[in-house]
C-alpha cells in the first residue's frame, strides 16, 4: 500500500501532466484554468500580443515546467518573464517576438508596484529630515514599490501601443532602455530614465550612504545634488535612515 507521501507525489504528477485518468483530469482542468486566470490578470498585454489560444498554451507549459511552491496565488507568475526568455530561444513561432519577455517583466513590475502599500513622506518632510541631520551620514530609503529594468526594446512604447494609446511608429531597434516603475500616491507610474539616473538609483538600491555617494560623485557634486533632488520630488526616495 502506498504511503501518504507517495500518494501525493503520484497525484501531483497526474495533475501536472496530461493524463487519461478521468478523475484526475477534472483536477487538472481546475488547476490549469485557475492558474491561467491568475496569469491573465497580471499579463494583459502579453495576452493581447500572442492571442488567447497561444497564451493558454504558454500558461500550461509554464505550469508544468515551473510549478510554484507559493501558497499565495497573487504572486503566481513572478518568473513568467524568465520562462518566456527561454521559450523565445527554443520556439520558432516566438522568434519575431523577442521583446515578449521584457514586456512581461514590465507588466510584472507594474502589477507588483500596484500591490505595494506604504505611507510615503512628502518631499518637504524628507528635506527637513535631511537638513536636521546634516552632520551625520544617512541612507536614502527607496520607494518600496520601485523597480529598475534595463530593456533592449522600447518597452513603454510597445506596452502603450497595446493600451490603444497613440504612440506613433515603434522602431524595434536594439538599444538600452532604462525604465523605472513605482507607485506614487495611489497611481503606478513608469518612466524612461537615462543611464546616469539609472546608475544612481541602483546605488541607492544597494543602500550606499550619503558619504559613500559623495565619494563616488566626488568630481560631480552638482550632479549628485540634482539626482537626490529629482529622486525626492519624483517619490523615488521616500525617507532617510540615520547611520549610527
Amino acid at each position, binding site marked *: *500500500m*502506498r*504511503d*501518504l*507521501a507517495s*500518494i*501525493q*507525489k503520484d*497525484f*501531483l504528477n497526474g*495533475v*501536472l501532466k496530461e493524463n487519461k485518468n*478521468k*478523475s*484526475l483530469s*477534472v*483536477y487538472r482542468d*481546475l*488547476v490549469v484554468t*485557475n*492558474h491561467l486566470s491568475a496569469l491573465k490578470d497580471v499579463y494583459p498585454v502579453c495576452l493581447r500580443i500572442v492571442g488567447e489560444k497561444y497564451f493558454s498554451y504558454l500558461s500550461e507549459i509554464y505550469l508544468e515546467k515551473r*510549478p*510554484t*511552491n*507559493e*501558497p*499565495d*496565488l*497573487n504572486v*503566481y507568475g513572478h518568473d513568467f518573464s524568465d520562462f518566456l526568455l527561454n521559450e523565445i530561444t527554443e520556439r520558432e513561432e516566438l522568434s519575431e517576438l523577442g521583446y515578449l519577455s521584457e514586456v512581461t517583466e514590465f507588466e510584472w513590475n507594474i502589477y507588483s508596484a500596484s*500591490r505595494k*502599500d506604504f*505611507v510615503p513622506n512628502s518631499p518637504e518632510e524628507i528635506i527637513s529630515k535631511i537638513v536636521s541631520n546634516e552632520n551625520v551620514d544617512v541612507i536614502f530609503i527607496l520607494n518600496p514599490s520601485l523597480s529598475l529594468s534595463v530593456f533592449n526594446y522600447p518597452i513603454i512604447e510597445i506596452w502603450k501601443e497595446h493600451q490603444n494609446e497613440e504612440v506613433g511608429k515603434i522602431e524595434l531597434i536594439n538599444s538600452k532602455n532604462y525604465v523605472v516603475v513605482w507607485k506614487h500616491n495611489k497611481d503606478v507610474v513608469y518612466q524612461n530614465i537615462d543611464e546616469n539616473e539609472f546608475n544612481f538609483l541602483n546605488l541607492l538600491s544597494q543602500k550606499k550612504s550619503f558619504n559613500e555617494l559623495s565619494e563616488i560623485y566626488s568630481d560631480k557634486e552638482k550632479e549628485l545634488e540634482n539626482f537626490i533632488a529629482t529622486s525626492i520630488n519624483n517619490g523615488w526616495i521616500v525617507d532617510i535612515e540615520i547611520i549610527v
Partner: protein
Amino acid sequence: MFKFDNTSRRSNLKSGIGLRDPHLEQIIEEKPNIGWFEIITDNLINADEKTLQMLEKIRSDYPFSLHSVGTSIGSVDDLNFDYLKELRKLSERLEPFSVSEHLCWSGAHGVHLHDLFPLPMTEETVLHVAERVEQIQEFFGHEILIENVSAYTDFVESEMSEPEFITQIARKSGSGILLDINNIFINSKNLGLDAKKYVSEVPKNLIGEMHLAGGEQREGYILDSHNCRVWDEVWDLYEYALGSYGQIPTLIEWDNDIPELSVLIDEAANANRRIDSICVI
C-alpha cells in the same frame, strides 16, 4: 491541548454571507440585516491599509468568521509558518468568532497548486493531519474548524468512511468541524456516498459551522462551483442536518459570478426560515 465542544457555547448566530469586494461600500453605507460575514483570509494577505480599515468598520457592526484556503493541512510538506503568521495577524486584528481551514492538501514535495485536493482516508493520514492541526492551534492560541471538501476522486488506500475520517481528526486534534452540506451532497453524487448517513455519523457537539453553496452539473460529475443559488437537494439535506444538530451558524458561499448583494441576502433568509421552522432554541 484544545478540545472543541459546542455544547458549552451554543452560538445564537443563524446565517451569514461571504464578504466580497464588490459589496464592501454598499454594506458600510446600508448596514443590511445580515447575521454575520465570512472573510477569505487569503484575499487579504498583503491587503492595503484602506481595505483593512473598511473591514474593521464592518466588523464593528457584524461578527466575522475567517476562512482560509492555503494552509494545505494534509500535505506531507512542512507547514508554512510565514503564511500562518499572516493569518494570525488578521485574526488578531479582526477578532472572528471562528477560524477555519479545509481538510485537504494543495501541494506537496515543493509544489503548491492552489486547489483543494482530497486525502486518502487512512490511519496514517489521521495521525499526520491531527498533529498538524494541533500545531496550528498552538500557534494561533485557539481551536480551529476543519472543513470537509468536495471530491472528484477517491483512493483505493482509504480505510474508513469520510465522516469517520473527519471525526477522528477532530477528536485527536481537539478541533471543531465545519460541515459543508453542499460538499457532502456533491460527494454523494460524485463518489456514491450516503449523504444522510454521513450527516448522522458526525457528532453534533463537534460542529461549529455549516456551509451551503450552489454547484454546477458537468459531464459525469457535479462541480463545487459556488456560482449560483443553493440546489433544492442541498436545502433538503440542510433541513435534515438542522433536525440532527439544531441551530448552527450557516454560511451561504458564493465566490464566482458574484451577484447583487440582495441575492445573497435572499439566500441567507432562505436558510434562516429553515432554522426558525426546524430548530427549537
